[in-house]
């Protein structure tokens, strides 16, 4: 049974473990492994470098002085300096990005917590003790994710303006919660569905109550999933621009909003633009590299395991 459970196939998905490889593909598979794979490896590396080049260039430029950044041909070997970062953090210009970074962190973290609080019980109701017609409910969740934000943004804006919630971080947090909730429910359900039924039944027979079952059987299986969902919700909230741009302003503006304003206000200071881009991308780069395959699972709404 273990080879068929989603857990096993998911673990195998990202990079097939070498042990699997050795047993599964031994013998006649891959007729001429060395020649074939060297060519493929070279091609893959070439493309990987091509795709990563803009990111590498962004990081490199952010450590250049403005004059070195704006040269043609590019000055790859120019001296490295932290000037652009100093400028970005407002030591000379006086415009600090910190409030917007803090807003982004607040909105992303709090909405993630809210999402988990709502999604975990929902997923429990949809998988461990499934309600009737649970597939219909799942598809309702999915369909809300498929509705473009622009289709609801005007009423949200009007509502926020009427009740005085414009430029209010709490209203944005609620929006981000609704944005991420469907994905979280989908992913959470697929994680909870992996809890072995035998264990649940055994616990029931042993007379374990709900809390004990949750803590001893469900939580250990669901924990990695919860961590992955949290990372994905964090990334999506951190990246979001349209809602933040329409619903916030001076007080509650997030980092992406700050970034767009920063560039139009500061003109074309290339090193500074790159430094700003690096700073706001850093949390996502870290979180994303940590949760590479979970990211796909989240984006594909839990459908691909």
């Amino acid at each position, binding site marked *: 049974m273990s080879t068929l459970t989603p857990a096993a196939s998911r673990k195998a998905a990202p990079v097939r473990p070498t042990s699997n490889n050795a047993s599964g593909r031994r013998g006649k598979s891959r007729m001429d492994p060395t020649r074939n794979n060297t060519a493929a490896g070279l091609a893959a590396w070439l493309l990987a470098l091509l795709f990563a080049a803009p990111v590498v260039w962004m990081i490199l430029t952010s450590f250049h002085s403005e004059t070195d950044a704006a*040269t043609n041909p590019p000055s790859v070997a120019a001296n490295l300096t932290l000037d652009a970062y100093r400028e970005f953090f407002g030591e000379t210009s006086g415009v600090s990005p910190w409030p917007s970074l803090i807003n982004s962190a607040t909105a992303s973290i709090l909405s993630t917590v809210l999402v988990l609080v709502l999604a975990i019980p929902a997923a429990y109701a949809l998988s461990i003790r499934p309600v009737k017609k649970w597939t219909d409910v799942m598809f309702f969740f999915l369909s809300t994710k498929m509705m*473009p934000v622009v289709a609801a943004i005007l009423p949200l804006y009007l509502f926020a303006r009427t009740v005085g919630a414009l430029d209010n971080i709490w209203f944005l947090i609620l929006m981000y919660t609704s944005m991420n*909730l469907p994905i979280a429910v989908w992913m959470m359900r697929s994680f909870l569905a992996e809890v072995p039924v035998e264990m649940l039944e055994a616990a029931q027979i042993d007379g374990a109550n709900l809390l004990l079952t949750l803590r001893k059987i469900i939580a250990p299986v669901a924990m990695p999933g919860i961590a992955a969902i949290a990372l994905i919700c964090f990334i999506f909230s951190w990246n979001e621009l349209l809602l933040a741009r329409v619903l916030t302003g001076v007080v509650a503006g997030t980092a992406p909003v700050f970034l767009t304003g920063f560039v139009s206000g500061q003109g074309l200071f290339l090193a500074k633009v790159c430094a700003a881009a690096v700073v706001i991308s850093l949390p996502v780069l870290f979180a994303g590299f940590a949760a590479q395959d979970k990211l796909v699972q989240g984006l594909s709404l839990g459908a691909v395991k």
Partner: protein
Amino acid sequence: MTTATARISRSGHTAAKPSRNAKSRERALAWARRAPLLPALVFLIIVTQLPFVVTLIISFLNWNSLSPDKTAFAGLENYVTVLTDPDLRQAIFTTIFLTVAVVLASLLIGLGLALLLDKKFIGRGLARTLLIAPFLVVPVAAALIWKHALLNPTYGLINGILTWIWSLFGSVTPPQLDLLSQAPLMAVIVSLVWQWTPFMMLILLAGLQSRPMDTVEAAQMDGATSWAIFRHLTLPHLRQYLELGGLLGAIYIVQNFDAVFTLTAGGLGTANLPYAIYQTFYFANEYGLASAAGVVVVIGTIIVATFALRTVFSLFKKEAAR
């Protein structure tokens, strides 16, 4: 034991419970089951469905917030305007073209990359990590980098490299591109393809690695060529993943705002519907018109989503049957 049978047996427990107050007990049990689901469900209905209903209502009104006393029922007038106004009609075509171009290009390149990464080679993990990087740069930041650090006609990296290559051959007149003003839609497409290819690659790679190897090995034993294996075994297996990647990509890219907003600010025929709607209500204050355009986007998305749902549903059924 499979998850599907497990689920059936789980719900089966409550299905039959003959007792005196059977009906009311059953109802109470059903509500106990539903209770954990309700907060999420109610929250989502209020925050996403209600506003759309309001959008639907506003779309039939003649409402410009600058002249609020002229608000009146407009019938289908706004929809007629959306479909006939040259700018808005252009935005519809731009949205379709942008989405189709980005999805197809990133799927094809992503497929190639996934096939390469499915093979074993030195440093595969690192190559994969490098390939994911474009997807992890915050979209606004990525758009800014493309606009200023890469595509800038005077000191962008792309023209810089052209200058450098030409100087190797002693030329002082290298060709210099100005994609942002010559072909702005192309600039948007290129930057989006760069961002979305890793996503397609990851989905397709997951598909490739879930492929049962025994049939492939049997085919190899029988002397099938790699092309025949790809055409008759790999591609059919990947079909679902290609569909899923394409349809989910379409749903995300139809909604794209960041790239259009940052790279071109909707100039020179690059305004897609989300950007056009943003402008219509944020700057032109034409609430009725913006809402009608919003409804048009939803209708378009429903058409795409119907196919997407079918794909997801087939994966879902597969999982349930496992």
